[in-house]
């Protein structure tokens, strides 16, 4: 299986984008680098977790670090597009290793409030203080000489953002590859109408913008893929083609979502990812425990 690909820069102000695929969670992690300065950002890194045994590992995060070292890059940012429901974020681990600041969308505070109640963490500060920076719509930052801009892209979660870096956009769980469609919108805080609007804003980027998605589920057993363009998505995405209206899309999305079971790590992941990629504090015996609330999530199809 192809789990790595490098999408080369085509000129000044345009990044090299290295994609790393995790077959276990179908997630794509990125190292986005400025060829001119060697500065880079890490986007959506995965902290490995085996839910059967409760074991954690850093194989994937270490693979990113090895690439960064081999290419002689310097990490300026460790970014997440949203609090993921299907894997643990390695942002904290990578920030500790590299000294680079972490960031996520500012609406993560609302997600924290939601899950603070579900997990019953009365003392948890739901204020985003677990990250170094919280991004709002239109915020800009730099990676070396690359200009980066933030688009607020809610729908899959109420905190999702898209990072537009030069001619590349990291759209995570909005659009998937054209042959798979788009992300579900039925998690707590999700909304199919909002997702539609977020997708339209992405499709309004220049046609040749390189789009990098957050997951690939390898339909029909094909090799994993994660790069497309705005033009390709508009012309061929199976959830968008054929004059689909907002109403059509929302109806399709809600119907499809009603048949999907919860992701197998949602209850595990959110308690790590709402803490910026930190595991829960140890109990008095020095051991850390995740919590699985019983019968707190209603409505999804049975697993």
């Amino acid at each position: 299986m192809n789990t790595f690909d490098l999408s080369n820069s085509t000129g000044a102000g345009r990044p090299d984008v290295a994609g790393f695929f995790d077959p276990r969670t179908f997630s794509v992690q990125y190292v986005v680098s400025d060829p001119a300065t060697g500065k880079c950002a890490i986007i959506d890194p995965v902290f490995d977790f085996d839910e059967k045994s409760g074991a954690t590992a850093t194989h994937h995060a270490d693979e990113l670090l090895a690439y960064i070292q081999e290419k002689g890059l310097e990490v300026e940012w460790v970014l997440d597009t949203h609090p993921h429901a299907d894997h643990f974020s390695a942002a904290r681990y990578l920030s500790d290793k590299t000294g680079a600041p972490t960031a996520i969308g500012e609406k993560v505070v609302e997600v924290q409030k939601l899950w603070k109640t579900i997990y019953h963490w009365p003392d948890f500060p739901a204020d985003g203080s677990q990250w170094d920076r919280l991004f709002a719509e239109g915020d800009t930052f730099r990676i070396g000489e690359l200009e980066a801009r933030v688009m607020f892209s809610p729908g899959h979660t109420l905190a999702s953002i898209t990072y537009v870096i030069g001619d590349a956009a990291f759209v995570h769980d909005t659009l998937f590859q054209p042959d798979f469609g788009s992300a579900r919108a039925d998690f707590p805080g999700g909304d199919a109408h909002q997702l539609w609007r977020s997708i339209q804003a992405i499709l309004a980027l220049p046609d040749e913008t390189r789009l990098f998605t957050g997951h690939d589920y390898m339909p029909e057993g094909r090799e994993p893929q994660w790069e497309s363009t705005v033009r390709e998505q508009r012309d061929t995405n199976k959830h968008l083609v054929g004059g689909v209206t907002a109403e059509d899309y929302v109806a399709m999305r809600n119907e499809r979502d009603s048949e999907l079971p919860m992701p197998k790590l949602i209850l595990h992941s959110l308690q790590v990812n709402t803490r910026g990629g930190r595991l829960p504090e140890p109990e008095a015996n020095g051991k850390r425990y995740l919590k699985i609330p019983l019968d707190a999530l209603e409505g999804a199809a049975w697993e």
Partner: protein
Amino acid sequence: MPHPIVTHFFDEPTNTFSYVVQDPDGKSCAILDSVLDFDYAAGRTDVRSADEIIAFVRDNGLEVEWILETHVHADHLSAAPYLHEMLGGKTGIGANITVVQDVFGKAFNAGTEFARDGSQFDRLFEEGDTFAIGNLEGRVLHTPGHTPACLTYVIGNAAFVGDTLFMPDYGTARCDFPGGDARTLFRSIQKVLALPGETRIFLCHDYKAPDREEYQHETSVAEQRAGNVHVHEGVSEEEFVRMRTERDATLDMPKLILPSVQVNMRAGQMPPAEDNGQVYLKVPVNKF
């Protein structure tokens, strides 16, 4: 030899067989190894499987005398408390449950509310103990190896072997959970195989097997002696231990081990709710 009426119930998501074992001369019965449905992803429980058993018991006018477990299961949650509430009957498990409670009580950092003395069950069985289901006599074999607390219930000409033997074409249970031991399992299996050849053997699980499309739940001592791929006649203890240990090293943990053991060590009761009224299971990180 009495011939109890045995009705099986299969839970495909966990490959588990539950049984209703009935006195052929009366209305008394026992329920063995029940399943509480659990959707781990959403953290949801349901009683669909248990309700099938309840419907069967009521439709046949049966009286539940016992709700039994062969062991503390690591792959499904027990529905014993729900069945007890709906149908009555006494709960029972092996006396070595206290060993399992001690190990997992520590692993899950259960508070002092969690007694490690087996008091959550009505009866703790030891090797050779007997009990009655109407006019049927049940007898207990201690058959550890898969876990320290595993029992085989011999009821008339039927033996409920839990996780010791599986179907002859599939073999035997794994021995790599905390407290498991391959040599101990081999010796336990010899006890089962020393029962009369025509003894009916009822399994706790079936996973099909290469070249077999149907799930099966019943075999006999004679069939196991002649054809079990892991422990047919002629396989030595050393050969078995080597095979079992090598094979176990290649197996993933069962998907539901962490949720299952913390509920089943409490006789199927959920952990106490936190002060918001919400019940939480715990997942120990990097403990197993």
